[in-house]
């Protein structure tokens, strides 16, 4: 897990999974890349076209609340989002991100504005707001999640260990 670089796309509190990808698209196509074209469209029309590879979605509290659909982190990933940075996350979404290998960073996002250049050090848990010369400290991920993320997601973790290997005892 290295350093991620990109620009911030700023959203507010309680961005639910229906905003990330509306429930109706789940059934229109199975192709995540197709679905990704509709990412966040109810909040920001044509958002898909504004994302450059590696950019960050930055939000307030409770990002990803609502449904358990794994399509939510998958479309963000497919749209090129490098990580989601928010003040807090909904539980299932947070877990899903780790499982599919999309980094999530929990920190105070009040100082991050639309378009800010960011550098994120996942291992150290630091978000550097380059354009403002400020550094924000993130809440560390639970060790089990670091393990899964480092393996590249839960699928890879399972393939590698043949099951859960969340602590050294087992």
């Amino acid at each position, binding site marked *: 897990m290295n350093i991620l670089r990109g620009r911030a796309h700023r959203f507010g509190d309680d961005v639910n999974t229906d*905003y990330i990808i509306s429930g109706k698209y789940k*059934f229109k196509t199975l192709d995540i890349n197709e679905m990704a074209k509709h990412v966040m469209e109810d909040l920001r029309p044509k958002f898909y076209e504004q994302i450059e590879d590696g950019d960050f979605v930055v939000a307030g509290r409770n990002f990803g609340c609502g449904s358990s659909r794994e399509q939510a982190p998958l479309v963000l990933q497919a749209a090129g989002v490098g990580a989601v940075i928010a003040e807090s996350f909904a539980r299932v979404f947070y877990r899903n991100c780790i499982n599919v290998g999309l980094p999530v960073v929990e920190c105070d996002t009040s100082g991050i504005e639309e378009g800010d250049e960011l550098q994120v050090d996942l291992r150290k848990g630091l978000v550097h707001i380059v354009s403002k010369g400020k550094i924000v400290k993130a809440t560390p991920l639970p060790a089990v999640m670091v393990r899964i993320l480092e393996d590249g997601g839960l*699928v890879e973790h399972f393939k590698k260990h043949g099951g859960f290997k969340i602590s050294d005892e087992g």
Partner: protein
Amino acid sequence: MGTISENVISTHAGKAVVAGDIVVAPVDFIMSQDGTTSLTIQAFRKMGGKSVHAPDRYAIVLDHSAPSPLEGVSNIHKEMREFADVCDAILYDVGEGVCHQLVPEKGHAVPGSIIIGADSHTCTYGALNSFATGMGSTDVAAALISGKTWLRVPSTIKLAYRGVLPAGSFSKDIALHMVRTLTADGATYMALEIGGEVIDALSVEARMTISNMAVETGAKVGLMGYDRKVADYLKGRTKVSFKGVSSSGDAKYDRVIAEDLSDLPPQVARPHRVDDVVPVDEVAGTEIDEVFIGTCTNGRLEDLRIASQILDGKKVAKSVRLIVAPASREIYLRSMEEGTLGRLVKAGAAVVTPGCGPCVGTGGGIPADGEIVLSTANRNFKGRTRTRSYTWPARRPRHTPRFRDAFPTRGRYSDEHSEGKGAQVRG
């Protein structure tokens, strides 16, 4: 010795755990539905899954877009049927009902068990004293293969509801009140333990409405205690042996919220926030286009009965569509046999297949842009039903026994409101 969550997880993990511990625990039942099973199958295959750990304890439900309105969905359904067949899982096909009604109704959710489902409202079974929580497809695939999942033992907020609910207020009003009190993220990563004499007095069906909405506060589970009513509900439904789990006297809670609900008026959530909950009076007069009665929150027999009593002998206003989706085949049949459904149909209801349809916006009554829906569902998010607002229909301002002149018999529900119109979440 701890909270219900700590006690259930300790028993499963084979060691005493407390909030904050991370454990790998065996799972007693698993469910996935047609919006999440494709990804589950994909993850299962990618992980090298050959067989399902306990196929008789895995149910695949075709409810979210059922019967299929599109070729793409038909293909998903086909894939699910084939997967169920290959791995020998339980299949609830089109028309059986909404997953969260079926799992309890078919006796799969028993007290003291750990259940995971690839759907956020899996927490519904907390009403049956089951540690049941929603997860994503990959987590479910991992559990299918290994029979286990990893959990962070949640800390618990205890809600103790005293008093006697006033006439005209129902369990949904408690659920909405709970979401407003805790807010949409107030219980994130945590467990709720919901009890007190108000809860004791409710039927198991009505309790499910409240546990169902625990996730609307961000909570992992919405647990209730085990009592005679739960035992009676399960009688004849399950062959699984079980033991109710309670919290210990010395359990440590993050917070205890004790309240008397004797004055709780009917509630409604305004678009598009689940926690923007106000007394129904505040939205009285809002024009509505569609009323939807159904879902895992309020598509049960007693909900249909309440609606049919209110609408008995009346007609739904011309400008309003009333869509009814009984939550399961069993409910459909029973409501037909006892005349409840007939009363609704005579009043002008369009009855659709037991399933999710209009709740998630896949069919059976999708509103046009800008229309206002008064719904019994749990969420009023924009983009969910293409539009907007959701509410609990079965109410009428000022405790006057429910809808009566308010609701569909005339095309207005409440007062004008944000975005020009608007009631919402009953659901």
